[in-house]
């Protein structure tokens, strides 16, 4: 085997090695933690980029850990969905660069190596979760990313963070257990743990009740991770109270794991063939998603805390993604607009939300204020940050020249095509609400006179500006012009493969 053939495993192992070595390096030379994390994530992103191109060129890559053929050993299956691992590594890199000043400024010195270790671990967990092709392995990686996520929320040690973290832990642990129980049910009727093998065995297994109960448990578990409407209670506190780089990781990347889990369950394991079995669940999911869109946007409108607002906006956007997933057409005559749109939105929302949380983090870093009413006229004091934030705001609303437009347009098209114009209307309504509350941010930032409290505020240091500017440029470039079609072109074959065409 050439070295490039080993890349599907190295993309998990490189950040894991970094995580294991980080406490040792931190004990020895505290200053080297951040450069080391940056180095490891740069290598990971390069590997991810190579794999993404390889998948695009010649289709999914299957890697057998320990040289055991799939049903017997663990398979790593790098397909178009798994290419999200590249996004995780890349955005992780940007977030780590951003965290340098945050960690030195806000954390106690002995917690700096712990912070970077946890960040590397949570990124490892997410990358593993997206690329693995084995259901139990997926559960193990889910635990890695969840546990490090809980700890990251409470790392600052401030009042209430422990409570937010505990709430997340309790709900998250229930969700992990229901996923594990689902795995147990499926294993008992299929006798295997490999996803593709399971799909084959599930077709011949005659146990519709067990399969439906397992599916319900999976959907419950992953909806908690993705924060769908009745199960979203943990998200606002956790995402708003966590340190800003951590909020960016949680909101931009971790909630997407729930979506990726659902994609694996619906389209890989249950698949097109037992569509009848899946359909009522899809209907319920669509309604849940619609409620999520509206309520998330509604609550976000009334928040004064800037990070709380972003957290509720995450809930609303997850609604869009799940709505798109639930409207995936299983009959072959229709074009899968909604599915393509929601898959692209997974990527776009990650980019926009990381950008917005990093901007919010930059503002809090300089001013120490997080209430919108205290931040009047901040646009004049921190022009670059706020310009980037405006781009993020325009993208998340979905105004044409930015990246947020295409995916929402596709989801709406899919809804119209599926004859569900009610959902299309709800989608538009949600977009208007989002527009209304983001206008509030822009209004306070630019059209008010600076108050006393922020009179001496300067622009943030370079290490914080670089990630923000890169992400803002990404939002613009991937939204319009020739590059605007790149994500859609990439995702389209993935959607077709998921639908078994």
């Amino acid at each position, binding site marked *: *085997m050439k070295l490039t053939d080993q890349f599907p495993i190295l993309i998990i192992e490189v950040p894991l090695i970094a995580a294991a070595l980080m406490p040792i390096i931190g004990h020895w030379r505290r200053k080297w933690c951040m450069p080391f994390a940056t180095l490891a994530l740069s290598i990971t992103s390069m590997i991810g980029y190579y794999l993404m191109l390889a998948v695009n060129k010649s289709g999914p890559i299957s890697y057998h850990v*320990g040289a055991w053929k799939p049903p017997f050993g663990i398979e790593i299956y790098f397909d178009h969905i798994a290419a999200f691992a590249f996004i995780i590594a890349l955005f992780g890199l940007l977030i780590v660069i951003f965290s340098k000043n945050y960690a030195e400024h806000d954390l*106690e010195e*002995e917690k700096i190596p712990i912070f970077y270790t946890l960040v590397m671990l949570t990124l490892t967990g997410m990358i593993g979760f997206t690329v693995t092709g084995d259901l139990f392995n997926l559960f193990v*990686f889910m635990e890695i990313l969840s546990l490090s996520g809980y700890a990251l929320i409470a790392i600052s040690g401030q009042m209430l963070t422990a409570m937010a973290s505990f709430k997340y832990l309790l709900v998250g642990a229930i969700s992990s257990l229901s996923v594990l129980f689902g795995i147990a049910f499926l294993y008992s*009727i299929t006798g*295997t743990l490999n996803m593709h093998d399971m799909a084959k065995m599930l077709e011949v297994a005659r146990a519709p009740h067990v399969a439906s109960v397992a599916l319900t448990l999976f959907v419950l578990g992953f909806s908690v991770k993705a924060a769908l409407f009745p199960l979203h209670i943990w998200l606002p506190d956790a995402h708003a109270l966590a340190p800003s780089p951590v909020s960016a990781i949680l909101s931009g990347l971790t909630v997407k794991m729930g979506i990726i889990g659902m994609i694996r369950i619906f389209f890989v394991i249950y698949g097109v063939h037992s569509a009848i079995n899946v359909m009522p669940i899809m209907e319920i999911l669509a309604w849940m998603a619609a409620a999520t869109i509206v309520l998330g946007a509604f609550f976000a409108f009334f928040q004064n805390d800037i990070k709380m607002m972003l957290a509720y906006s995450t809930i609303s956007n997850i609604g869009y993604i799940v709505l798109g997933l639930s409207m995936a057409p299983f009959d072959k005559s229709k074009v899968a607009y909604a599915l393509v749109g929601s898959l692209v939105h997974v990527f776009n929302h990650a980019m926009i939300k990381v950008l917005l949380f990093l901007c919010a983090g930059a503002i809090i870093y300089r001013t120490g204020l997080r209430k919108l009413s205290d931040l009047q006229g901040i646009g004049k004091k921190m022009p670059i940050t706020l310009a980037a934030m405006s781009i993020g705001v325009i993208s998340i609303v979905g105004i044409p020249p930015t990246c947020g437009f295409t995916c929402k347009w596709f989801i709406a098209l899919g809804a119209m095509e599926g004859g569900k114009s009610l959902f299309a209307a709800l989608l538009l309504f949600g977009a208007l609400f989002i527009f209304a509350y983001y206008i509030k941010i822009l209004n306070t930032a630019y059209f008010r006179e600076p108050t006393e409290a922020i009179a001496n505020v300067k622009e943030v240091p370079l290490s914080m500006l670089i990630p923000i500017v890169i992400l803002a440029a990404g939002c613009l470039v991937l939204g319009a012009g020739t590059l605007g079609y790149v994500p859609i072109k990439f995702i389209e074959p993935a959607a077709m493969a998921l639908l078994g065409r």
Partner: protein
Amino acid sequence: MNKKVQNYFVLIVMLLCWAVFLFAVAEMPLMGDPGNITNTHVVPRYLEKGVEEGGAPNIVTGIILNYRGYDTSGEVTVIFTALIGVLAVLKRENIKKDKSLVEISPVKTSVIVTTVVKFLTPLIILFAIYMILHGDVSPGGGFQGGAITGGSIIAFTLTFGLLATMRKFRLSIRIPLESSAVLAFIASGLVAMFFGLPFLTFLIPGFGFHTQELIRHALFIIIEIGIGVATGIIFASIFAAMGKVSKE
């Protein structure tokens, strides 16, 4: 009263959930039937070829280390994550500043307890070493041995206090040992990668039969010892972080 009504409502919902579960349970394959799909699809290969392929008479060890070794690699990462998470929430103990309840307690530990613990701790650790090294032929293995080691260190701390114990395990020794399980897994996985084989392959072709077996056993033992040591030290570290009392 309102609370009570609420509780009854939850109870009814839970019982309904159970009823739904029972429909699935009634449809599941009968328990204990050798003809179940779980016993005929993947597992026969493990049972028939497990000894030569998996490299251990104890099939469970063979699965943990070999067939599904990558799960175990994730598992040791989970324990490592738990330790780092506990440290992120509570911070590591500081020998100069912190004491444990044993040290600030006005009642001295009795002579019987201290003598017994002093006498038993080395024996328990010896048993743990046996457990770790003997995992492939009998029930046991790295995690079990590590848990026993951790238990003995905790017993020692409970009798002699945090200061006396943690002086024996200095931070500069403990920190590398905590990550040793993850590193041992990665290192033995990389050996195969060096020979151009997939990660975590233990049978490396190109050598004689006996050398092959020897390499495989050596790799297994490295992993088992790594897991055992790391689990023990991680449990001790978690306990120290939780059990510390700041002196001020």
